[in-house]
């Protein structure tokens, strides 16, 4: 259990989707300013059943179905946040955020700054993200690098149910806009989740498996693939240190650099397109840091293919890093074969 638990709470097995729903329920209960907005989040319960039955519990004024209007919907959330509400806006797929970059990036991210600190925009954008569902090129993208490039935003990528809840509650407590990338393939994943309110801090990565031979920095579903690879490598005597990135913006330099100083070897694993994806920044921040002198081998990256996500399932799998890929490259790194 990786979430930073602040209270001595009962712990249950919940799915990632249930954990997110629980976080939203806590927020709706404790703060009348919280509203949920999004397409089909009411009666339908959300395309991925994340909001589920919240409409029955909190009514349509707190759980608002929006028309299919991503730009306008996001903008309504921004305007509401600017004036006293705390909206959690769900994009049905993160791909549709391409329609709302204006409001997220030109408005939400910059309003505090442009207004010299005289206003704030405490909005949360939830983004079901990633490939693996056979939904092809327009429903499978990983846009976290785009948002990670934007000052004024915070960007998180939970990899477990406990993190999903804790990071969403942290996002809600944050006075600035936060983008939450939820991986679609994780929604059904179960894991221990503390009851009640707790926060998983934004900006902190977690060492989810300690090791001394090679550092693997992974995010979202890649954390699990990296852990599987590390298990197999351990049988060969290779101890990989696996870091769950959790936050893309701001990056946790300290945790990453400390690990690389220990292992001397770095592999970045991410689902987004390799070029200019999250791993590019992780590599670059290590290469410019004091950890550079500790590097024993080139920094390796495994990212998404330089292609849209294909429909055919075999091609789709081949388009993003899988556990054997991670195992192979980590082994090469550890054995000095790179």
């Amino acid at each position: 259990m990786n979430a930073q638990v602040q209270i001595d709470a009962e712990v249950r097995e919940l799915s990632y989707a249930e954990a997110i729903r629980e976080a939203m329920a806590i927020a709706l209960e404790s703060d009348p300013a919280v509203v949920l907005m999004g397409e089909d989040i009411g009666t339908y319960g959300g395309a991925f059943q994340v909001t589920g039955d919240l409409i029955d519990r909190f009514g349509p004024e707190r759980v608002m179905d929006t028309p299919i209007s991503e730009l306008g919907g996001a903008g309504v959330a921004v305007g509401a946040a600017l004036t006293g509400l705390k909206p959690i806006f769900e994009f049905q797929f993160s791909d549709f955020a391409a329609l709302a970059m204006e409001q997220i990036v030109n408005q939400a991210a910059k309003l505090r700054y442009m207004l010299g600190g005289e206003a704030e925009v405490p909005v949360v954008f939830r983004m079901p993200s990633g490939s693996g569902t056979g939904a092809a090129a327009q429903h499978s993208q990983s846009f976290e690098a785009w948002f990670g490039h934007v000052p004024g935003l915070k960007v998180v990528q939970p990899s477990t149910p406990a993190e999903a809840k804790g990071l969403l509650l942290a996002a809600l407590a944050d006075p600035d806009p936060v983008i939450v990338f939820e991986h679609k393939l994780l929604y059904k994943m179960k894991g221990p989740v503390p009851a009640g309110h707790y926060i998983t801090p934004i900006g902190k990565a977690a060492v989810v498996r300690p090791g001394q031979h090679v550092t693997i920095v992974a995010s979202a579903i890649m954390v699990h693939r990296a852990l599987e690879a590390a298990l197999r490598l351990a049988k060969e005597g290779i101890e990989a240190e696996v870091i769950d990135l959790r936050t893309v913006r701001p990056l946790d330099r300290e945790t990453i650099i400390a690990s690389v100083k220990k292992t001397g070897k770095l592999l970045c694993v991410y689902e987004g397109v390799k070029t200019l994806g999250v791993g590019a920044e992780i590599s670059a921040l290590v290469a410019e840091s004091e950890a550079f002198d500790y590097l024993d081998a080139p920094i390796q990256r495994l990212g998404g293919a330089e292609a849209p996500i294909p429909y055919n399932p075999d091609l789709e799998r081949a388009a993003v890093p899988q556990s054997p890929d991670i195992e192979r490259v980590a082994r090469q790194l550890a054995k000095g074969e790179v």
Partner: protein
Amino acid sequence: MMRDTTENIPFAISQFSPAQLREALRKMHLIRLFEEGAEESYMRGLIHGTMHLSIGQEASAVATCMELTDADKITSTHRGHGHCIAKGADVGRMFAEFFGKETGYCHGRGGSMHIADVKTGNLGANGIVGGGLPIAVGAALTAKRLGRDDVTVCFFGDGANNEGAFHEALNMAAIWKLPVIFVCENNKYGMSTAAAYATAVPNIADRAVAYSMPGVTVDGNDFSAVAEALHEAIARARAGEGPSLVENLTYRWRGHSKSDRNRYRTKDEIEEWMTRDPIARFRAELIAHGVLGEAEADAVEVEAKDAVAAGIEFARQSPTPAVTEVTKFVHAEVAA
């Protein structure tokens, strides 16, 4: 075959030849059977991902495309199988696409949400609601600039009409008087969200006035009503008089996609709409007006059934893409 000569001849009957009408009925059956075949193939694990079936909306697809040639273009939607068939695609290559095969229209890269057949003028389904609206305007611009007389039909849903792209596209089509027809398939819901809730006007066609273009709402399950509306709109477009908005009121019998639990509508409503089956109605009309006999009509359906069976077989036996070819088709292949 005798043609009815009374005054109450439906538009389609008087407008099209018996061969054309027979072909229209065949396509409507083909769509229905294709969708059912796709549904079954999905259940049997031959298709993955998701699909949006257009069962119940066959008249809208076929009647809309009735007067279009291969030179005319359509842009389609996530619910696009019917449009693709109506425009002339081969169901074998469509199934092959859904099965992820190299012989599919998109070589297995696109799947249901990107099904296209550029050769018959179908510029593609679209996974982005409203994504095709400005693209259709662009296609119409090409025709106008290059002095061609082809028109573009832009299919979109009631849900899509609330996208900003709708507004921008209709406005540009209007100010430039482009040969494009916006065909809204209003099936009362965008996923679970009722048009009556999400759209601030009773009929989508009411919005045509905001673009100074004609707007008409027709019974989308009435083949002839749709064909007539399109006939006028196409004539207007070809005459250089600009765009039109046609709204086909219809209904999808199935859920929005494979994961829909239909909690936002009643069983009664679904059943009531199933009594308005556009295929049965068109078939009856053709028979009543002496275009076809019962046996002939049955034969048309069998023909469609055979085509679907053959299409599935073709798809099953087709090869899959090489797993090494993930980046093929990202860019034009450069001559070595």
